[in-house]
């Protein structure tokens, strides 16, 4: 069974038809990059999976978004929105650590889900920070404010925060676009590592980044999925001429 798939999903912001019948499936332990020019619907599509679009007024969604075969938008399939978001973690474009200590940032997801056992929380915080390749840099200052970290460290903290509740899917919305090249390289390395444990979907504007980190790439244009294939194929031998033009930098 596919881990995650959408079947003929349409999304409307009021009258604006933002996603036009997207059907896609994501395999476990792969990195899928969503690329396309601004406004093509790739971020909107990403936010379907943890229902962040619900926060925007006047959004209408048609079609099915299936996680392990269950439609996440249907109340009767029995998945509460907080349960869903425990399974589907998200990292945002700009680092958004909470104004709390480094430790409490990572522990936050556990605490709001009712896990407060000190030993367990400590262990999970350490594991998550190690997974996010941040542990060595922060292990001596866990009680310090997260705002004292650099932008790149903050973003890795946000990744650790998302990993702490052990999701099976990780959504990343241009996670490196606000970072310098060195921090970006670290995040990309991290994505490569994390693939072993998680199914990752990443939105990116950076073509090289998509090429470096992803196994499969989907090209969106004007709310439609133009082409979806393995990353080497999309970048070297795409079927569609629009894809070809975009990845070679002739428009976008």
């Amino acid at each position: 069974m596919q881990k995650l798939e959408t079947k003929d999903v349409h999304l409307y912001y009021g009258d604006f038809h933002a996603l036009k019948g997207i059907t896609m499936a994501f395999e476990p332990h792969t990195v899928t990059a969503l690329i396309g020019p601004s406004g093509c619907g790739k971020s909107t599509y990403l936010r379907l999976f943890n229902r962040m679009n619900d926060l925007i007024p006047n959004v209408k969604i048609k079609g099915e978004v299936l996680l392990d075969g269950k439609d996440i938008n249907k109340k009767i399939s029995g998945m509460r929105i907080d349960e869903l978001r425990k399974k589907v973690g998200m990292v945002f474009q700009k680092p958004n650590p909470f104004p709390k200590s480094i430790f409490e940032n990572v522990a936050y997801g556990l605490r709001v889900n009712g896990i407060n056992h000190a030993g367990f929380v400590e262990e999970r915080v350490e594991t998550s920070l190690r997974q996010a390749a941040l542990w060595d840099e922060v292990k001596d200052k866990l009680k310090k404010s997260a705002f004292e970290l650099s932008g790149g460290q903050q973003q890795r903290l946000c990744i650790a925060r998302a990993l702490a509740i052990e999701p099976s899917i990780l959504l990343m919305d241009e996670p490196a676009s606000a970072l310098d090249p060195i921090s970006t390289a670290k995040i990309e390395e991290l994505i490569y590592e994390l693939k072993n444990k998680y199914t990752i979907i990443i939105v990116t504007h950076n073509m090289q980044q998509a090429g470096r980190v992803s196994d499969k790439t989907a090209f969106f244009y004007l709310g439609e999925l133009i082409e979806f294939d393995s990353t080497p194929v999309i970048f070297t031998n795409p079927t569609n001429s629009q894809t070809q033009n975009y990845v070679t930098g002739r428009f976008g």
Partner: protein
Amino acid sequence: MSKKNKEILAFWIFRILSFLVIGVLIWIIEFIFVRGWHMLNWEFLTEMPKDGMTKGGIYPAIIGTLYLVAGSMLFAFPIGVLAGIYIHEYTKDSWYKRFIKLMTNNLAGIPSIVFGLFGMSLFVNTLGFGDSILAGSLTLGLLALPVVIRVTEEALISVNNSFRHGSLALGATKLQTIRRVVLPMALPNILTGLILSIGRVSGETAPILFTVAAYFLPKLPDSIFDQVMALPYHLYVISTSGTKIQESRDMAYGTALVLVLLVLILNLLANTLRRYFSKKVKMN
């Protein structure tokens, strides 16, 4: 006139006008300090007024004002903050939300004497609280309510949505998000607004005129159903309608000074608290 000279002229106009504002404030404070400073002593702050309010102290008025401020905040703070949270975090942008906001703003624009009359009619007469701390506190609380709501709303607006989204995306409920992330971040601004509204409430005369304030009552209240003296009303009484206005001049300046100092101290406190909490919020 050359471009450069216009620039210089504009700069000086702005500068002079701002100095004028500061000048007026300093003038008022100086006026009160010079005339009231010699009245400030332990006796003045801790004794009952004597001899037709020409001698003694203003202790009951200070205590009365403190009771009224505390009572009004006990009422306005929880209701105002919860209403502010409701308006900003829970209502969607619709005619309903706009209606609530419009009404809140209108409430803020009602003259304080109208609040006084309303308080007398509702709390003193209809609900039968009589002239009492309870009636006065509730009336002052009503006056402070729109301010507290507005301040809370503004404080919540200043919390970036990315923090809310970050929390929700980790499986937190809306209530958890508000309690654990949004409110701690908004707290410094809410507290500042609260203390500033205390400053306003402590100086109001009209709302307490018909609801609580006593002309002369040289004793402390026993319960919330007692009347009290209050600083602003006391000031009004001894400056305009006492029996010996000339002899109580010094008392009036002393009272004014205490009132001004009270408000200044509260403003300073507001600043300190805000700094303290905005540091603390980053640490937790």
